[in-house]
């Protein structure tokens, strides 16, 4: 249990030091007293797989995004890309803008996370024709 606590504190410190512009987004450290702790990569790949399902339906998309937002983290760009592509498969443009808005909201006081995410998503946004809230002018209402 002590080693688990040390591991948790180390990953917690690691998560704190990673809130820099060019680094990964802040990710949660789960507080298990026993058992293995899911790594950040496992978490990311699990969510990417969820959104990449070809026959995902609208409810599952909504449920996925709403659940992802409940976590104390900003999702990685690759998870967001999978979610945006899922919106494309479902012909749902409005949800893509909403997802980008909520990413900015989740970043909170860390003002450098959202531009980084948009920068990483730029190829996907251009490919799918998704406009950011800033381009549409709805970020300043």
């Amino acid at each position: 249990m002590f080693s688990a606590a040390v591991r948790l504190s180390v990953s917690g410190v690691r998560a704190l030091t990673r809130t820099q512009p060019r680094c990964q987004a802040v990710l949660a450290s789960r507080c298990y007293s026993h058992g293995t702790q899911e790594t950040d990569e496992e978490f990311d790949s699990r969510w990417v797989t969820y959104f990449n399902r070809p026959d995902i339906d609208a409810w599952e998309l909504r449920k996925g995004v709403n659940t992802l937002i409940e976590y104390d983290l900003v999702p990685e760009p690759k998870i967001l890309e999978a979610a945006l592509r899922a919106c494309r498969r479902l012909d749902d443009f409005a949800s893509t803008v909403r997802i980008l808005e909520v990413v900015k909201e989740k970043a909170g006081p860390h003002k450098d996370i959202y531009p980084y995410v948009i920068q990483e998503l730029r190829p996907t946004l251009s490919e799918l024709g998704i406009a950011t809230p800033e381009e549409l002018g709805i970020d300043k209402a």
Partner: protein
Amino acid sequence: MLRLTAGRVGSLLARRATAALSTGSARMASHGHEVSDTTDMSQPLYYDSVDLPLPDRPYKVELTAAEQSLKQKEKGPWNQLTNEEKIALYRIKFCQTYSEMGRKSHEWKTVLGTAFFFLGLTGLLFWWQVLYVYPPHPRSFEPDWQARQLQRMLDMRMNPIEGLASKWDYEKGQWK
């Protein structure tokens, strides 16, 4: 007799309850014909919340012809949508944007003003009470009485070690 009355009250309540339930709304039959806006809570609801980016249903359910044709265009490449069309699609599905949801209001001025108003009102009420309700002071509050009381306390050497009499210089007749 008591049990019978309780039973009659119980049946009365049961009849009222079934009447309310059968109309399928929260109105009671005895309340007259007031029109109240009842929400069907058994259907998925739309609400704007920062915690819920994608609500259970779109904001607009009945679409105009223009909106329906826009929804058809949405099935094609999104690069062909103009910015106005994109905003229109957003407004079909959602009521408020995140920035609209999070905008600050002027409510705090109303709250603070109301609080100060009631504090002031209480102050006025209290002042009237002091003037008209409080009885006059007892005689023992008069300065003359207080002075003679203090002199008597000193003559009795009250608390001579660390208290009152220890602060009085008896040779010089003044406070130390």
